[in-house]
């Protein structure tokens, strides 16, 4: 097991968040270099060549996205997405907590690359202390001349606003996030137009995940080839995985993409805690399909391999599930989450998430029938691919995969129910 330090070199260090420490360790050199060269197109090109893919979940190449801003746009905005609300995901908070200046330097360079003069860092509402931490870093950066007018004498201006969300998962979706900052109801907009063309205040806007942004300074300093030396051809670089569940060493890890899960599990995480056996893994946050133990042991942790295995790398929020865990109970928790967080704007998601939630709750309440499993599938079919944003799919993917891979557990529960003479714990028609 090797250490990878593109993103995580200051993790766990009590003073890592301070400007002095960051500068001492080479911080803001990338920014100086970029401003000296004064060529936004070159920055975009470098990031494109590095092959950096968006770490917010979709894995879209960052440099390519930057290129979607219309040439000669007068007013451009840059947003750092720190809404991190996907269950199982807790990597961005590490980046901002231990090393806010790295993300901030990335923000300034990225804003320069797309010629934005106002950037927002949108922080999940529950991360109250992070708002203070990031704001302190922003204040330090202003004082040191890394922000404001005429940064480092380059003529480039940038203001950064730290914005605190109110705790809605859907505000992590980029257009929901933009609406939320505009003071509208936090719900996604229909696309097209895409934010890169018409986003904040109707102007071209780039939204990037914290981790994507935090990777930028290193790429600038070391060059795209150095970055490509890590990872695979199509999934270059390193990625943070936040691991939860009864493994010996849960936490946030920086790994080179393409690392075999087996190796990660045994060598890095130390395997399961005593007395627990691996049952399944959700590799990329609650929204991606679950993989049973035998399947997950054969995958590599990169975008393509995981896609081939029928799941996704997502946010890298890895949830390790032990044998002792009841999969129906787990899916009930997840279905409640999506039901609770659906913005309710479009019908298949609004009604479908509620319907799934109620059926699963009914199953767990001892009122399930054989027909309910078919009904769950039916509801999933009425949601998948038919909505404004991917939240509906994010609910459907775990639901379908739990049903597909762990059907016997659902069936056993239903039989048990039938045998027990359908005693009712949750009254039918109960409201929420």
């Amino acid at each position: 097991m090797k250490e990878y330090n593109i993103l995580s070199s200051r993790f766990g260090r009590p003073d890592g968040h301070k400007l002095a420490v960051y500068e001492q360790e080479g911080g803001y050199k990338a920014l100086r270099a970029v401003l000296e060269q004064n060529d936004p197109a070159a920055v975009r090109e470098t990031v494109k060549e590095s092959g950096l893919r968006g770490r917010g979940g979709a894995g879209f190449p960052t440099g390519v996205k930057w290129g979607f801003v219309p040439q000669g746009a007068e007013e451009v905005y840059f947003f750092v997405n720190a809404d991190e609300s996907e269950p199982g995901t807790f990597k961005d908070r590490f980046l901002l907590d231990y090393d806010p200046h790295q993300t901030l330097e990335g923000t300034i360079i990225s804003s320069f690359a797309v010629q934005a003069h106002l950037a927002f860092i949108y922080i999940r509402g529950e991360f109250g202390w992070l708002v203070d931490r990031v704001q302190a870093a922003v204040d330090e950066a202003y004082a040191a001349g890394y922000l404001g007018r005429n940064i480092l004498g380059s003529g480039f201006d940038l203001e950064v606003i730290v914005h605190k969300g109110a705790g809605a998962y859907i505000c992590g979706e980029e257009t929901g996030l933009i609406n939320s900052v505009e003071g509208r109801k936090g719900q996604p907009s229909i696309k097209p137009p895409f934010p890169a063309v018409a986003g904040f205040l109707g102007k071209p806007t780039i939204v990037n995940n914290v981790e994507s942004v935090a990777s930028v300074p290193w790429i600038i300093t070391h060059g795209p080839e150095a970055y490509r030396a890590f990872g695979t051809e199509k999934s270059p670089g390193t990625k943070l995985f936040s691991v939860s569940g009864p493994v010996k060493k849960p936490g946030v890890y920086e790994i080179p993409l393409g690392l075999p899960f087996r190796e990660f599990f045994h060598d890095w995480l130390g395997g399961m805690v005593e007395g627990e056996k691996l049952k399944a893994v959700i590799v990329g946050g609650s929204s991606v399909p679950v993989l049973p133990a035998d399947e997950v042991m054969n995958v590599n942790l990169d975008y393509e391999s995981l896609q081939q295995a029928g799941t996704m790398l997502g946010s890298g929020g890895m949830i390790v599930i032990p044998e002792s865990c009841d999969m129906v109970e787990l899916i009930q928790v997840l279905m409640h989450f999506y039901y609770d967080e659906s913005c309710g704007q479009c019908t298949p998601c609004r009604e479908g998430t509620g319907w799934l939630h109620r059926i699963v709750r009914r199953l767990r309440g001892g009122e399930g029938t054989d027909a309910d499993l078919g009904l769950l599938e039916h509801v999933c079919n009425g949601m998948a691919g038919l909505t404004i944003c991917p939240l509906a799919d994010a609910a459907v993917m775990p639901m379908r995969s739990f049903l597909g891979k762990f059907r016997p557990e659902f069936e056993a529960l239903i039989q048990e129910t039938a045998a027990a003479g359908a005693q009712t714990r949750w009254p039918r028609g109960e409201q929420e």
Partner: protein
Amino acid sequence: MAKLTIDDQEYEFPDGTSLFDACRQARGEALPHFCYHPDLPVAGVCRLCQVEVEGMPKLTIACNTTVRDGMVVHTRSERVNKAVQQVLEMHLINHPVDCPICDQAGECGLQNQYMQYGLYESKVPMAAKVKKHKAKVIGPYVILDQERCVLCSRCVRFCNEVTGTGELGIYNRGDRAELDVAPGVELDNNYSMNTVDICPVGALTSRDFRFAKRVWMLKNTRGVCPGCATGCNVRIDHEGGRVYRLKPVYNPEVNGRWMCDRGRMTYKELHDERRLLRPFAGGREAAWTAASVALADLLRDGGFSLVVVGPRASLEEMFLARKLAPADAVVGGPADLDRGEGDDLLLDGDRTPNRGGLKTLGIPEPAAADLAARITAASGPVLVLGGEPGRDAGVAAALAGCGGLVVIATHDGPSVQAAAVALPGAAWAEQAGVFVNRQGRWQGFAQAVARPGAAREGWRILAELAGLAGVETAPQSLRALRKEIVDTVLSEGELDMDRMPETGFVPGGGER
């Protein structure tokens, strides 16, 4: 232009055309939809207008897509039908299905589309549905049933974008989302009832029309709102001689798809208790024959020495009225009457429908004081029609002192009270006619309901008066009258007033 294929046929549409509109034209009927509305910004929330575009992996909504050259679109494929069915089902799972007590039943988007894509078995037991408010009064004219709402956001967009008043919003999230007025606010703008029209289900209904009639029993007649000089095109919904409601009719040149609440309520005057139902002669109710005798007596020594024709008369009535006295003795009602505050959407400050007609025929409108003076100075009989000039006190006093006053009226009022002979005329929904609006646009309307009591069409009454007054040139049929109007005011054959163009007619072309 973009050439594209829709359901295996080629079509051409101008660039920028919405795929939804293109499909509507190609199919001859709209795609299933709740949220799309041609006059509102696209919301894309109902997810019903799914179509298959070749080369795109997922189905896509037509309402947020513009036509592209070479597009190949399927709107009736297996995949599309399945998706529409599923999305429709999602719309219904929390719907109360209280159609038997819903005013929208019969003109409901949910009912209609469900029948078409039919899934008849409910998979959700009644008791398990999400419960919300029913019958919540949200403004002077509108009542809300949140359970029936499909959250299409049309009404919200209307109040945000058309009136700019923003009273409505969708509160809460997920399937707890519900439409409501903002706290402490009423849906009280002059266009509020348009939300009832655009609501595709029975969530927003009219308090005025509530439980009044099943919609499938109503007959419809095309009309023009008499409420102001804008002349919004309306559909008069009526049955058994009663008008139940007015709905706006699309006229891109006049009112688009909207009308104001004030205008919508004008039908009430048709049925109010002040309607003049029989002729009066010498202060007493009389039969038409008796009234004619009195009139003949009055007009024995010649015609009228003054005709006052108000802006509520039809163009036909105005034209005939003009023949009953010398040109300089035919005047309009007081110019300052029936004026209010207009707005920049539709409502005009001139609250009468046909000042444009007076202008077209060159009939001057004196100020109230001048009119009163002319009435007082009249040496012989005076005729009043097309409105109530006596709502001005000075004019009312002059009328009261007038010996030979003849009035054609729809309602009782100061002039009727002062009249030697009062004749019940037909109101706007009770006869055919033309109003000329503020743009100078001629707009025709048809008879919707029977005339109440002994009321007669205005032009017939005027034709009879012409006979009694010895005017020989009065045409004896509406057709002949209209032909004469066209030949006199326009150039011969320029317009067939019996077949007015859909959007009305502006002499000399489109400009106002």
